[in-house]
């Protein structure tokens, strides 16, 4: 079984409003899957369906080859975007309660909590009430509660909100480690730099429809624009400029190098290779900077969404 989660033709409506319109996704086992989309696109609706909080109007969902059913609740860990804990309940009691709701025995839950509390160096919080903790501290507890029953599928909705950069890095590291230990992770976020950092695959949902999905590298290849950033140390900038304009499509550039090098962006046509450009450049001066502009997840997101508006 290659995919842990298969979502086929899911439709969900609320009254007259269609939240998900025939959405299908395959989430490969052991991957970090970025579920992206603007606000109100339908991500939360989809996540709630995967969590069996709501049921789809039609469509099927398979987890590890089996139709999704209540027994899978223990196989899923969910960190919602809007999250919280019982304010007046003690940290330890609360974590035990939530673990038991996920099907762990009390003894097992205690053992695992001890491991995680020591790992995050928060063992002294056990008898504190949540309302005595800062937001970032409570988020750590929340993260532990999400992962401690060792689910096959973890769903993180904006996991880094509320964390300072240091703790965000800690959580990112934990997420990657959980993936390496075999968990499959659905990761929903607006922070595109963390998509670049963490995601193996992505899907883009916009206005209730899936408009893009696949491996992040494949998608980037698909969106590549064949634009190269070049920087050249030369005697005569005008001469270089005119030679480039004769042979290539030259675009204005906006980046900085150390000196007063000649800089520009060049888009290659289909029958031109980067070596063609490089050989022209190397005759004109010393090449200081030569790099293909790979579209960022952010660029892809904006382009795909605006194309579909």
């Amino acid at each position, binding site marked *: 079984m290659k995919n842990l989660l298969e979502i086929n033709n899911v439709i969900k409506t609320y009254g007259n409003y269609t939240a998900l319109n025939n959405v299908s996704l395959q989430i490969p086992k052991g991957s970090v899957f970025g579920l992206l989309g603007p606000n109100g696109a339908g991500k939360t609706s989809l996540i709630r369906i995967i969590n069996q909080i709501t049921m789809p109007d039609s469509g099927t969902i398979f987890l590890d080859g089996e139709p999704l059913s209540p027994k899978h609740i223990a196989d899923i860990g969910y960190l919602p975007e*809007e999250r919280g804990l*019982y304010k007046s309940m003690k940290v330890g009691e609360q974590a035990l309660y*939530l673990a*038991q709701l996920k099907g762990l025995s009390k003894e097992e839950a205690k053992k695992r909590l001890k491991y995680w509390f020591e790992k995050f160096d928060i063992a002294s919080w056990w008898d504190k009430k949540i309302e005595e903790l800062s937001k970032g501290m409570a988020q750590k507890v929340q993260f532990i509660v999400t992962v401690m029953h060792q689910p096959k599928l973890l769903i993180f909705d904006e996991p880094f909100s509320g964390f300072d950069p240091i703790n965000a890095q800690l959580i990112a590291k934990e997420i990657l480690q959980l993936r390496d230990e075999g968990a499959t992770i659905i990761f929903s976020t607006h922070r595109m730099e963390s998509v670049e950092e963490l995601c193996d695959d992505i899907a883009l949902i916009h206005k209730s429809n899936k408009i893009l999905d696949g491996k992040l590298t494949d998608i980037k290849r698909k969106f590549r624009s064949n634009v190269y950033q070049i920087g050249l140390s030369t005697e005569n900038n005008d001469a270089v400029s005119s030679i480039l304009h004769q042979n290539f499509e030259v675009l204005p550039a906006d980046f900085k190098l150390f000196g007063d090098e000649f800089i520009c962006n060049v888009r290659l046509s289909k029958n031109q290779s980067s070596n063609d450009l490089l050989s022209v450049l190397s005759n004109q001066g010393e090449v200081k900077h030569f790099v293909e502009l790979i579209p960022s997840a952010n660029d892809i997101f904006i382009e795909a969404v605006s194309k579909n508006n």
Partner: protein
Amino acid sequence: MSKLKLIIKREFIAKVRNKSFIVMTFLSPLITVGMGALVYFFMKKNDEKVKKIVYVDESRLFSKDDFSDSKTIHYEDFTSVGIDETKKKVEAGDYYGVLIVPKIDSLEILATSIEFYSKESPSLSLINSLESKIESKLRNTKLTNLGIDLDKIASSKIKTQIKMFDFSGEESSKLINGLKIGVGAIAGYLLMMFVIIYGSSVMRSVIEEKTSRIIEIIVSSVKPFQLMLGKIIGNASAGLLQFLIWGVLLFIIGTVAASFFGLSFTELQTSGVSAEQLETAKQAVGADKMQLVIQEILRLPILKMFVLFIFYFLGGFMLYSSLFAAVGAAVDNETDTQQFMLPIMLPLILGVYVGFATVINDPHGSIPVIFSHIPFTSPIVMLMRVPFGVSWGELVISMSLLVATFVFMVWLAAKIYRVGILMYGKKPTYKDLYKWLKYKG
């Protein structure tokens, strides 16, 4: 442990550990008893001050025997002092008032010519007591004038007391009827208070889960219906626990207080009953006052009432708290609950009013019978009727209707709850709630 059990346990512990629960549970019986003792103490203190009343009898009709002193009133004959002098003395001295009987031969005219002067306006009971003293003296004088022998009249007096039985052979009396009304009213009222207090506690707990945003984490582990049911059962258990503790505490405090106050506690218990009733009832049972009251209470169907109280409390609570839960789920904060609270409170209050107004007059009249079958009012009205004896047949119909309705209402409320707990922002209208009912899954 099943998830429902876990939820019930958490809700129960969260409720019971709450400071207000502990304070309410242990303080309110003390306050109740303390207030009772305080009122009694004040009543006694109030009566302890002896009022001195003087009278000037120019008609020479009255003697010292006609104005016999009571515990709280001391009479003095100032006839020899004269009206004007007496008035001055009373106004200056430590006297309460002066009664002036003018010299008039006609008894009829005299009857409306007697005056009472006092420094402050006298209590109704004082005037009543003076009037009855004068009335009886004047009547006796008139009877004597008519040549009627007073002794014969006294010996012709006869007392009537109808003994009441039902067909099971149980004897009842006015005293026990009063007790029945009291016990029924307390049970019905207590039930209403419990439903409101614990129902809004369910509501607050739902709102807390919504505002703290833990709700989405919980419902990814359990079904919303389980969560709602667990909440209702957890709170109901806390309510029952509180009720039981109250029962035990009241029993202990009552016993201690009774032995501490001794006879005075007995007086307090029976002060509402007239001496005549007591006398007859005493003869019937052959016991002293305290024992009599206890025996009468014991003759009520206490076990039946206890069981029925628990049943109707649970039934009524399930019915109403599911509505409270739905309201809590529909709104984001407590201030938004008001528009939805009125329709919930209305039948509860109606139940208490109907109960108080009709059960006292005729416990088995058509209005109380109807209201003790309508599930929204039956817990309250039926509890008020139970002390008067309600047949098991009637009870079974009323109870089945209640169970059927609460199952239906829990199902209905769960549909609103399920959608509402994940909705934030706009305050919903009734139309929205209706729409939610139709959402699938």
